[in-house]
């Protein structure tokens, strides 16, 4: 199981939890599982999310492997100027 930290506005879609546990080995599995378990998260996932894995930010990268003790943080999709 992987613990995923949700930012504040997403928590209401996940029964108020700041952190949820999902069974996933990759980002793709994690996002699919989140969307299936908490349909309220789906619009944001569709619009785009970034994921921080142990402090490193990934914008897409479905197949990035997640270790069981990894820190995973969901973040809005990054852009810049």
């Amino acid at each position, binding site marked *: 199981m992987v613990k995923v930290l949700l*930012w504040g*506005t997403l928590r209401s879609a996940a029964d108020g939890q*700041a952190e949820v546990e999902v069974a996933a080995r990759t980002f793709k599995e994690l996002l699919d599982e989140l969307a299936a378990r908490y349909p309220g998260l789906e619009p944001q996932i569709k619009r785009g999310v970034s994921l*921080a894995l142990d*402090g490193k930010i990934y914008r897409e990268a479905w197949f990035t492997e997640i270790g069981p003790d990894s*820190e995973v943080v969901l*973040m809005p999709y990054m852009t*810049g*100027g």
Partner: protein
Amino acid sequence: MALDAYQKREFKQVGTRPNRPDGVDKVTGRAMYGADATAPGMLHAKVLRSPHAHARIVAIDTSAAEALPGVKAIVTAADFGVPEDAFLLDVQDHCMAREKALYDGHAVAAVAATSLAAAKAALNLIKVDYEVLPHVTDVDEAMKPGAPVVQAGRAFENVPAGMSENVTHHCEFGHGDLDAGFAKADHIIERSFRTAATHQGYIEPNACLASVTSDGRADLWVCTQGQFFYRTLCAAILGMEASQLRVTASEIGGGFGGKTMVYMEPVALALSKKAGRPVKLVLTRDEVFRATGPTVSSSMDVKIGMTKDGRITAAQARLRYSGGAFHCGTVDFGAQAAFAAYDLEAVQTLGWNAMTNRPKESAYRAPGAPLSIYAVESVVDELCQHFGLDPLAVRLKNAADKGTKSSYGPTFDQIGLKATLEAAKAHPHYAAPLGPNQGRGLSCGFWFNFGGNTCVSLSVNTDGTVGVTEGNPDIGGSRASISLMAAEELGIPYDKIRTIVADTSSLGYNDVTDGSRVTFAVGLATIKAARDAVQKMCSRAAKIWGIDEDAVEWVDGAAVPAGPNAGKFPPMTLAEIAAVSAETGGPICGHHEVNADGAGVSFGVHLCDIEVDPETGATKVLRYTVFQDAGKAVHPSYVEGQMQGGAVQGIGWALNEEYIYGADGKLQNPGFLDYRIPVASDLPMIDTVILEIPNPGHPYGVRGVGETGIVPPLAAISNAVSRAVGVRMTELPMSPPKLLKAIEAKG
């Protein structure tokens, strides 16, 4: 061994300052920018724009204009479809108003004619029947119940019920127990701040040359930060296949984020398609201000608690941003970045975006971050004043470091904030004496940086030279940096390499030049493409020598037999291998494609001294020093250039630049005369101190440097001014009338 991970090494070329490859073209006037291209049979286009801030378009009659001699095509929203995708719909609606004109300057029709004079004359003959609607241009007004609704039904699901329909987006970040944190504070300061929208202010107005032929193929020559993204948007809006639209990026006369979005390019293509001739469309400066860029405007509240020895116990920010008449997610970045420089137990940031009757926000260097960090750094500074504490010592005491749980969630890896603060503390600037009416300000700054989709092709020519083909327009010397990294990796001289920026048909997809990504991501892909070519060259040498290719190494630009074969053959240089490439298996090229991650966040600290004329509120920047972590400065001159340019744009934002709207909702200052960007005589030299704390995510340790530099100046200057006049300033820009009023109110 992960080839993309940082490895400590001695650089031979990276870190030197060779001449840029596009230098001679640019100093002789030969470089071709957006407006410099022509095509046979070319028409000239002009855009008709709404004189109203908010109006329903009842009818458009183009018949008289169409009858004017020389007029070859006119388009309105009726010539475009209605995209299903909400993002694309916004992009298209911004290029051409559909049902309503949403801001002063919103395009409502466009004409292509045989001369600019005929196109202008035609605009005067287009009759638009408007039903003028109430408008709102202020973010706080737009959030109030009963405010004029800019666009209905556009709110995301995350917006709490009961808010104005203009509020499209809401976000929240943070961790810890705020109440408990504030209870531990010896003093709490809560202040409200406002910032005006600013424009990227690039000197080259947006320009393009579109050519659509009757067989459905099209070419677009355009000044852009991202030809591939422009292709995606234009092809989608025009219903074209990507392969049929080739977009070539011209030399670009500045962008700073403002040329990451299409404004009139789909219109030029539609006109060309309709007229059956090439169409050139160049915006005037007035149009650039009214209908491209700008940033968000903001209204913010920040509350911070501190102990008397300078430890922050809790921090909260509420950010209200407006990205104009469309949805805008920039407040996310502002909310995430606000407290990134601090190690905090309890922190919360809340953000809202509200639509107003202003042009659609476009990215500008570290979008969203300069504003929220300005507000936070102002309150931190005021707390330091309250307790009589040294502002650098307080920042060091609270500074985020490796292992800090950041205010936006993830735990930081290696970051350079403390080193940057220490460098500022040790610098003579920090200890220099100040005179009367002078103040010193400092601020931390932060930006995420990112990598993104990148594709590089590197070809080894038979004469021993190398071509690098990349897909990102060069806005600040990146061709020089890319060539340097290729030279370093290949072990050949810098001037044996020519790096070019490819059109969309010549290379795989590259994300736009944004997010400070180019030197990081294109550099990474170039290094790996070079390694790919090196591997092939080693293989060719091994075949020539008749040894196993694993027993060949690449040293100083040559294949060298290694292991059991060491010393058996003399080194074979790149030129020697290239010369016989036809005989050994054909052309030698290296490639790399990646969606790069691991850009590594960047911190900076700015120090500035300001003098204020107490009788007029005039400010003078006396001294300015930028400290920033570059990871590794590939071409230090251009790293300094990014730091200096970012600082000066921030100085403009802090002191004089602003979008001024009249009660009628019209932009009052759409020109360089009254939109006051800094001129040479306004400024001192901008000193720079580059720190190099390697980014673990890049083979050479590179971090992006382009954006962080605009983040600290707003607060650094506001803190300096506030200290100089003895009044806390809370609104940007600090133009002289505002400053004099504050000084006189103090008495």
